[in-house]
């Protein structure tokens, strides 16, 4: 079975079933925004949501993660976590799934990151396809992430009274096959899916003025540009843009001792290139002085460097960095400002 069909009236039954299978995280409301949270009551789940404050990366790359347990005397070290828990991420947008694919590329690149991979092994991703824009900040169509492009176990599409579920892994297939109310999708349902996808083409239009290859080219020529100066003036250096980015993966490592001053834990904690001291080295030299060059670096880490290194854009188009910036720095505006000056 490749495509399955779930009647909306059976959605809650399926959610109850999934909830029992593993630790279950889904989007829920938090004040006027949304967050991924563990679900107690399936009624709390919001499937119509704008991207959550933090992307689901917090579950496979936690903000503060234990790495190593150690003892000073007699000296001894041990893994901090012996057993990782199975978990399901439910209702993930395609932009965030693209984020997971980017992280995969980074953490699988040698030397592989065991902590990330251990968590990732335990993860089941059930996505939901967006049929309309979340808000004006998203640039998913330019990045090609408004449509599913793999990286999930199951992908749901709302076709009216049913969800069509694309089965993309064995793990996913089990979760569909084990319940009797999910059937194989009928031909007419598949026709509806095709029609909905066509309609979607009319709604989602590339948000950048230039095509992605042109954007890449413009980055090649824009290392010195007024655009960065302008950003540097606006930027307050809070680091929100990198914290909320589904593909930012920088971290710092620190040791914390217990009060007996003999046992301790080694942690890794999210870090950000927007921090003042991020590129400072011993002796006080700072390789990226000023908010202007730090903002520029962030953009190059999305549209230039990873393309050269991994042949992949590290912007997913989720729009979080723009949405969260109180200084009003817009990714779409910034990229658009770069393209006309550099390309004839």
């Amino acid at each position, binding site marked *: 079975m490749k495509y399955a069909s779930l009647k909306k009236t059976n959605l809650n039954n399926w959610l109850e079933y999934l909830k029992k299978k593993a630790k279950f995280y889904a989007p829920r409301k938090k004040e006027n925004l949304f967050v991924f949270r563990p679900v107690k009551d399936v009624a709390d789940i919001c499937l119509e949501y704008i991207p959550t404050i933090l992307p689901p990366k917090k579950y496979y790359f936690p903000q503060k993660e234990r790495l190593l347990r150690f003892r000073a005397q007699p000296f001894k070290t041990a893994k901090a976590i012996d057993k990782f828990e199975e978990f399901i991420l439910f209702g993930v947008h395609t932009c965030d799934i693209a984020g997971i694919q980017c992280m995969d590329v980074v953490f699988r690149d040698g030397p592989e990151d065991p902590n990330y991979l251990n968590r990732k092994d335990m993860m089941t991703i059930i996505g939901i396809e967006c049929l309309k824009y979340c808000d004006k900040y998203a640039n998913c169509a330019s990045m090609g992430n408004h449509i599913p492009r793999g990286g999930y176990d199951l992908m749901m599409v709302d076709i009216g009274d049913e969800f069509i579920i694309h089965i993309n892994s064995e793990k996913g297939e089990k979760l569909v096959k084990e319940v009797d109310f999910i059937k194989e999708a009928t031909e007419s349902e598949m026709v509806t899916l095709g029609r909905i996808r066509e309609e979607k083409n009319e709604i989602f239009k590339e948000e950048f003025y230039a095509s992605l290859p042109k954007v890449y080219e413009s980055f090649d020529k824009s290392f010195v540009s007024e655009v960065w100066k302008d950003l540097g*003036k606006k930027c307050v250096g809070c*680091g929100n843009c990198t914290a909320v980015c589904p593909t930012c993966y920088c971290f710092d490592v620190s040791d914390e001792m217990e*009060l007996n001053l003999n046992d301790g834990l080694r942690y890794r904690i999210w870090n950000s290139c927007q921090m003042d001291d991020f590129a400072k080295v011993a002796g006080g030299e700072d390789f990226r002085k000023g908010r202007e060059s730090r903002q520029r670096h962030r953009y190059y880490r999305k549209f230039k460097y990873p393309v050269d290194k991994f042949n992949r854009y590290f912007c997913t188009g989720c729009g979080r960095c723009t949405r969260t910036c109180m200084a009003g720095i817009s990714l779409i505006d910034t990229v658009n400002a770069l393209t006309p000056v550099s390309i004839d």
Partner: protein
Amino acid sequence: MKKQSKPRLAFFDFTDCEGCQLQFANLGGTLLELLELVDIVNFREIISEAAEDYDIAFIEGSITTDNDVLRIKKIRDKAKVLVALGSCATIGGVNGIKNRSSLELAKKIVYGDKASTINTIKTMPVHEVVSVDYTINGCPVYLPEVVSVVKCLLMGKPYVVPNYPVCSECKMNENVCRYEKDQECMGTVTRAGCNSWCINNGNRCYGCRGLVDNPAADAQKDILSKYGLKLEDVLKHFTLYNDSMGEKYDQEFK
């Protein structure tokens, strides 16, 4: 290791509300664990003894009189290690508001016709008078940070106060941004280390931990005025805790 005599801790307060010492006293079970490692020999909120023989001095409060200056110098001479505890001691804190007007005017406003009998000098954080080895920011201090600093102190390691803004911790806690709710918040320019304690609990950031080394003053002013605050009000937000930060502060903000 246990046979060695334990380091002796003493607590002293200057111009403050003694709230940071109270926080320390509130360590609860952790305080008892800590007593395995140290002796507290002078701490008027929890013991009646007041020994004058100590190794580590915790200083709460800002320096605001000539007598304060003499007293803190004496303590510095005796203590092997000196810790500034809380906003008043580390950045001058709310007491710094006094520095906004001339001393004469400030005295007159507060003490009226008795002003001439009062000795007062400009408000200074402790480090402006004597050298400080460890800094614990906050109004009041954040207990997990207090514990971290004490551990560093006992291991003889430096404690590095974060030089990034509260926002970065706040975002990791996945709070809804105060600006999202049309509230002004100083988290963008205020030194982190408190794990965005106030915002986690529904409040906003008042800047009690002092400003980061290189605050984006202009950008922050833009943001605050974008949210409908006048320059005057903006300055009030900046100066609530940070008025006695000296020349650097003046250059950035006035």
